[in-house]
């Protein structure tokens, strides 16, 4: 089954649930606003995920130094064997 079909099925299920709510217990005015609350919450959750991810973005500053060492080692080896590594 294609992913979009899965998502649409989920959307239909949630909508059916919402329509069900409209008909029953919860006062109409609140029920009508539920989709808005849902979309806003989803947006906030997304922003939260981006923010948290940004805070915990794994960095590796020591890797830059290690890479420079590797580059120097590589240039040394290759220069001796006739490979042109003087381009910069």
């Amino acid at each position: 089954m294609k992913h979009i079909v899965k998502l649409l099925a989920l959307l239909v299920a949630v909508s059916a649930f919402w329509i069900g709510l409209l008909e029953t217990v919860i006062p109409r005015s609140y029920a009508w606003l539920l989709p808005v609350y849902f979309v806003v919450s989803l947006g906030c959750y997304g922003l939260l995920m981006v923010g948290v991810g940004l805070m915990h973005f794994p960095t590796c500053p020591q890797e830059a130094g290690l890479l420079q060492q590797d580059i120097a080692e590589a240039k040394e080896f290759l220069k001796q064997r006739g490979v042109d590594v003087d381009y910069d």
Partner: protein
Amino acid sequence: MEINKNKYSIIVPTYNERLNIALLVYLVFKHLRDVDFEIIVVDDGSPDGTQEVVKQLQQVYGEDRILLRARPRKLGLGTAYVHGLKHASGNFVVIMDADLSHHPKYLPSFIRKQLETGASIVTGTRYVKGGGVHGWNLMRKLTSRGANVLAQTLLWPGVSDLTGSFRLYRKSVLEDVISSCVSKGYVFQMEMIVRASRKCYHIEEVPITFVDRVYGSSKLGGSEIVEYLKGLAYLLVTT
């Protein structure tokens, strides 16, 4: 310890990577000492003399270990992999960038993970503990994180790093997945892993560190963001 009888074909697309390709080849040979592998350089007619440097490297390491399979001009990343695949004699294929942002020192961990789990695909991820990036400013991190959250929410891909392109594939799996991909550029990497995920291939991840390129010019620009969003919409509907 069982001897690893697999052969790994490492496909490296290049465009103006004259210095980087030499450094990369050295590092691959350094880190894959007891492994049967070949490096396939797919160069798209670089004007900076990349192919000349590759030929010099062939003198040092052997023409059977370094294959130069060039193309006349820039023809795109996806087709570069397809082209490289045609000449690959290994039963596993590694794809990686030429600019040293993908460090060959992680190749053993890709291979080990695959042998341990029997996975069809091992993909490098920058976003888990043990992985990481360096040289990205806040804006780039924000774009990357935002792109990932959006893609995770919409696509449920099953991997943590969708846009990464440091991966090990079983050759037959790569051939299968690549034949059904039509995107261009960076979206292509996403399409590959999402399609593989939809086809229920066994995918494992290993942490990798990604140091932003030291030499040469990056090929990532503003229009790429628009292309990304279009690509995401396309993947949402067609996978």
